[in-house]
């Protein structure tokens, strides 16, 4: 398992342009498979346009205590990109102005941003309806200063969404690093202890399932039953829902697909599983993604591919609801990941 980001290793795929080239060459250039654009055109679904903005997803920094093999952010301890308090304030101004109901905090490990707690406190003060933190769980046990995070989350009624690729140690550690499974179990117990994830509790704890390999996720409801059964019987752990998320072929997962000679088959699987019904509900239609330095993107994946919103307004400081609502969503072949099967978004399936 690698302990450094693609960027630190000077891997060619750390370059977003190179990733976009890979996604447009080969099977797509030869027209062996249709591009995402031509697929949408065939179905009269092109161009994709945003609906009402409901979720502001903010990537507060790429720094993370883990180096997961599938990470689309290429996050890790060696990444230094961190959102400033000033940019956070601009995000808060936008959420007040637009009335978007959800602030979705992601990273990296969002808790590692030194202004993270301030941001959550301020968001609570201005009355954001739902604050989500995408926690990798292990951060809670990584250092003493993070041990009280469950209490902090509880105080602000933060909705915790955490990654858990499998209920077995080997499959989890294979994707997320040695020792991650046991640390995650410990963190889940700490969250359960303060009330998170318990039946009828309004302290929401959901898990995210990403396949640990070159295959698509199965039925979300069936997986949720299996996860609940296994985590309850083996570890006495409770949680609310399981969101299954498809791995998109970008960054470290793309690197893995190519190195393991699974890229073509994976793209075939994605294209074959294309579901027109999923297109209407893809998350880029109700979400805006903000990078650590304030740039705006249609989603977190486009952020990593450096595909800024196709609009005269591209930065949070210049935010204009009207102008942004007229934009067309930027797409490439990675978008097949969100339209495969029952669809995939940061809230799980969409169909």
């Amino acid at each position, binding site marked *: 398992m690698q302990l450094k980001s693609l960027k630190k290793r000077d891997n060619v795929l750390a370059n977003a342009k190179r990733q976009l080239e890979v996604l447009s060459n080969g099977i797509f250039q030869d027209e062996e498979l249709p591009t995402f654009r031509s697929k949408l055109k065939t179905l009269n679904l092109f161009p994709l346009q945003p609906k009402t903005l409901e979720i502001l997803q903010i990537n507060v920094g790429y720094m993370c205590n883990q180096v997961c093999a599938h990470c689309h952010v290429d996050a890790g301890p060696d990444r230094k990109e961190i959102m400033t308090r000033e940019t956070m304030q601009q995000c808060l101004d936008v959420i007040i102005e637009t009335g978007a109901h959800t602030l979705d905090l992601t990273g990296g490990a969002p808790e590692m941003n030194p202004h993270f707690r301030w941001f959550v406190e301020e968001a609570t003060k201005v009355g954001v309806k739902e604050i989500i933190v995408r926690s990798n769980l292990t951060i809670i046990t990584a250092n003493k200063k993070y041990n009280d995070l469950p209490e902090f989350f509880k105080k602000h009624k933060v909705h915790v969404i955490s990654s858990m690729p*499998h*209920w*077995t140690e080997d*499959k989890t550690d294979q994707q997320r690093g040695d020792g991650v499974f046991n640390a995650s179990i410990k963190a889940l117990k700490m969250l359960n202890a303060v009330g998170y994830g318990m039946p009828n509790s309004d302290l929401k704890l959901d898990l995210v*399932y990403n*396949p640990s*390999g070159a*295959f*698509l*996720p*199965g*039925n979300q409801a*069936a*997986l949720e039953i*299996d*996860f609940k059964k296994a985590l309850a019987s083996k570890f006495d752990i409770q949680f609310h829902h399981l969101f299954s998320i498809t791995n998109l072929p970008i960054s470290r997962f793309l690197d893995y697909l190519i190195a393991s000679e699974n890229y073509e088959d994976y793209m*075939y699987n994605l294209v*074959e599983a294309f579901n027109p019904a999923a297109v209407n509900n893809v998350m880029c239609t109700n979400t805006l993604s903000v990078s650590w330095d304030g740039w705006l993107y249609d989603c977190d994946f486009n952020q990593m591919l450096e595909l800024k919103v196709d609009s005269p307004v591209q930065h949070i400081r210049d935010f204009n609801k009207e102008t942004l609502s007229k934009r067309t969503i930027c797409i490439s072949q990675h978008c097949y990941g969100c339209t495969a099967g029952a669809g995939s978004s940061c809230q799980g399936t969409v169909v």
Partner: protein
Amino acid sequence: MSNTYYEPSDLRKFGTITEWSEELGKKFFDYYGSVFEEGALSAREKSLIALAVSHVVKCPYCIDAYTQDGLKRGITKEEMMEAVHAGAAIESGATLVHSVQMMNKYKKLSM
């Protein structure tokens, strides 16, 4: 033409068998789809049965397909291997039970 009898990428072309016999092909795929739906057995159980049978009939396409299907469903490698052993046990049992015939014949022909 490929130089081998089995070409992994042919699995993707399975659906094209309907081109040469649309009616039968369609009937087969409809039937196939219905068989693997949730029923008295769960889709997960059926996937493991399919994996075991894939080995017994020694179909490399089916093994690829149902290993992938199992991974999608969160089926563990231990469960997959146990399923294959169940298939293998029946297959070897089917061979060994014929030895009763051998024993019968042996006895009949011997003084």
